[in-house]
Structure formats: structure tokens, C-alpha cells
């Protein structure tokens, strides 16, 4: 008998044990992106951070420093404007904008369609600037080879403890705007040790795109990544 209303219509309740990752489809699409990058010999890097931690500024400086060394492409994720893409375009590299509207992160499908619009055969190093947000982007694999999280000294040293997932999912932590560290009460040791507690495999570089401090270490890491890709 039907349990809802007592009518005589028999209904069968069926319980299906699924046990599957909810983002399984995204993960499969991410794997496809990664395969496509590899086919073209491209190193893909996903930049994640809170709004304003310095992702676009870092990209501008990185493009200058890698001029003549490798060919760069950038995919810009933003809620609304094309401003960041325009800043990158000024630097003379290939750039595609993804405006996500209401969505606070990039997913693999969005990156896939942006990749279609890029001259992949000309690119060695593809940066994806994710939407400024310390929570959501970390849940989505977009198919790059390296996840980089930026934490600016202006945000406070408590962020790793508050937003563990992004630090867990990253390969590299960039502590940015170190030129401001003196004025702010940013406990560098605490931020780094909290992040390393969450993820002992995390590499850490402290830099300032403004003063140039630490940029050599970042550039060396990128060049090493590129060499490993080719060999």
C-alpha cells in the first residue's frame, strides 16, 4: 500500500547505493584538459587566491621576466569585467577571458572551452587566473599541472587555518606583497607553519611583484617546470 496516502496503488521503493564523487564529471573533464595540454607540450598553472591578493600583478611581472624565454598564454576568470584580461593583453600575450557571472570559481568545462579559443600550438606556459575566492576554486580540478595559492600579507596570517582546502590542494604557496610585511602585523612564521601543517608537501616562496624581491625564485621554479615538461 502507498505509505503517503493509504491508496491501494503499490509503489516500489528502491534504494540505490551510489558512492560516487559528486564532481566526478568535472574530474573527467579536467583529465581531458590535462591530456590536451600535454599533447601540446604546455605547462598549465592554476592561480588561486582571495580577491586582490595580486594574481594579475604577478602575471604582468612574470610575463615581463619571461620575455624571450617562453611563450605565455593566459586564461582569465572573473565574475564580471574584462579588466584583468585587458591588463594582460597590454603585455602582448594570448589571453582569453571567462566571465563566470554568478559562479565563484572556474570549472574544467569552462577552461576547456577557453582553451579551444587559444593558439595552443604557440604556447609553452598557460596560466589560468581563477576567480578571486579562497574557498570554491579549490574544490574544482581544472586540468592544470600545478595549483598555486597566493596569500598576501594584507590578508592576515590566519588564512591557512581558516581555509584549509585550498592549501591542501595546492603545490605551491606564494606569500605576496612582502614589501608591506613590515607595516602590517603579519606573522610570516605562523602563516607558513600553519600551511605546512595542512600540507607538508607545499613549496613556499615569499615575493613582492612590486619590489621584485623573491621573483627570481618564482621564475626559476617556472623554468624548471618547463624544462621537466620538455624532457
Amino acid at each position: 500500500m502507498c505509505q503517503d496516502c493509504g491508496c491501494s496503488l503499490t509503489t516500489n521503493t528502491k534504494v540505490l547505493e551510489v558512492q560516487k564523487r559528486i564532481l566526478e564529471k568535472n574530474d573527467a573533464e579536467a583529465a581531458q584538459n590535462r591530456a590536451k595540454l600535454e599533447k601540446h607540450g604546455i605547462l598549465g598553472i592554476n592561480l588561486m587566491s582571495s580577491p586582490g591578493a595580486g594574481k594579475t600583478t604577478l602575471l604582468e611581472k612574470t610575463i615581463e621576466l619571461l620575455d624571450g624565454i617562453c611563450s605565455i598564454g593566459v586564461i582569465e576568470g572573473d565574475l564580471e569585467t574584462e579588466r584583468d584580461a585587458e591588463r594582460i593583453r597590454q603585455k602582448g600575450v594570448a589571453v582569453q577571458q571567462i566571465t563566470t557571472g554568478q559562479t565563484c570559481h572556474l570549472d574544467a568545462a569552462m577552461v576547456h572551452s577557453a582553451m579551444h579559443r587559444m593558439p595552443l600550438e604557440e604556447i609553452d606556459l598557460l596560466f589560468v587566473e581563477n576567480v578571486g575566492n579562497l574557498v570554491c576554486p579549490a574544490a574544482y580540478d581544472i586540468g592544470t599541472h600545478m595549483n598555486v595559492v597566493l596569500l598576501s600579507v594584507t590578508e592576515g596570517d590566519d588564512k591557512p587555518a581558516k581555509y584549509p582546502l585550498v592549501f591542501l590542494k595546492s603545490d605551491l604557496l606564494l606569500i605576496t606583497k612582502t614589501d608591506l610585511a613590515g607595516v602590517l602585523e603579519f606573522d610570516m612564521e605562523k602563516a607558513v607553519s600553519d600551511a605546512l601543517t595542512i600540507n607538508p608537501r607545499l613549496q613556499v616562496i615569499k615575493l613582492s611583484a612590486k619590489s621584485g624581491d623573491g621573483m627570481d625564485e618564482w621564475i626559476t621554479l617556472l623554468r624548471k617546470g618547463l624544462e621537466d615538461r620538455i624532457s
Partner: protein
Amino acid sequence: MHEFSIVQSILDTVEGYARQSSASSVKRVVIRAGAISGIEPHLLQIAFDTFKGHTVCSEAALEIIIEPLKVECCSCSKIAENTNPLFRCPFCGSTDVRLLNGEDLILERIEMESSDAETQDSP
């Protein structure tokens, strides 16, 4: 706030399973959310109730099982739950710990109804 996107993925997946099983409606969707999976359970509930209309889940309840953070210490081999700080062994203080559970978002189970008698047995 990616709860809306997560709900969209849940609805799409459930829709697929419901079709496969020729279900007429879905009564309950159970998911397991890790403590550090980055979703906010009450926002996920709101998102689910907002978007389930006009889908096979329109009458479904969403049950969210929060899975505590669980780590295994690589120094003393003990297992601990809900550690604070998150990745430090409460027994020996080592930070050399391995995450066992707590970051995943899993679609655990779907309870469906069909008026068709052949679908009674589960796979």
C-alpha cells in the same frame, strides 16, 4: 559559494540514475560531505530546495552526512578525528599526518520510487 554548482551536479547525476532505474520520483538523496570539503551544509540545503523544482527530485529530501576530518599519524600510527589544529596528531604532536577522510563530496545513496513492479530488486 559554489553550493549552487554542487547542487546542479547532484541533480544531473540523480536524474541520470533515476532514468536508468525508470523511477517515477526520488524521495531522498543522501550525500556525504567532508568537514573541509568547502561546502556550507545549510547553503547546500537551500540551493537544493531552490533548484529541485521541475526535476525528478522535486519531492526529494536532501540528507547531508557530515564526515569528520580523520587523520592518521605517520609517527605514532594512531588515528584521530576532528583534530585541532587540523593536521596535528593529538597523541604525539607530530604534524606528519595523512588525511584519511574529510575533503570529499560523495553522492552516497538515492531512494527512488517507481510504480513498476520489476524494478524492486536492487542492483
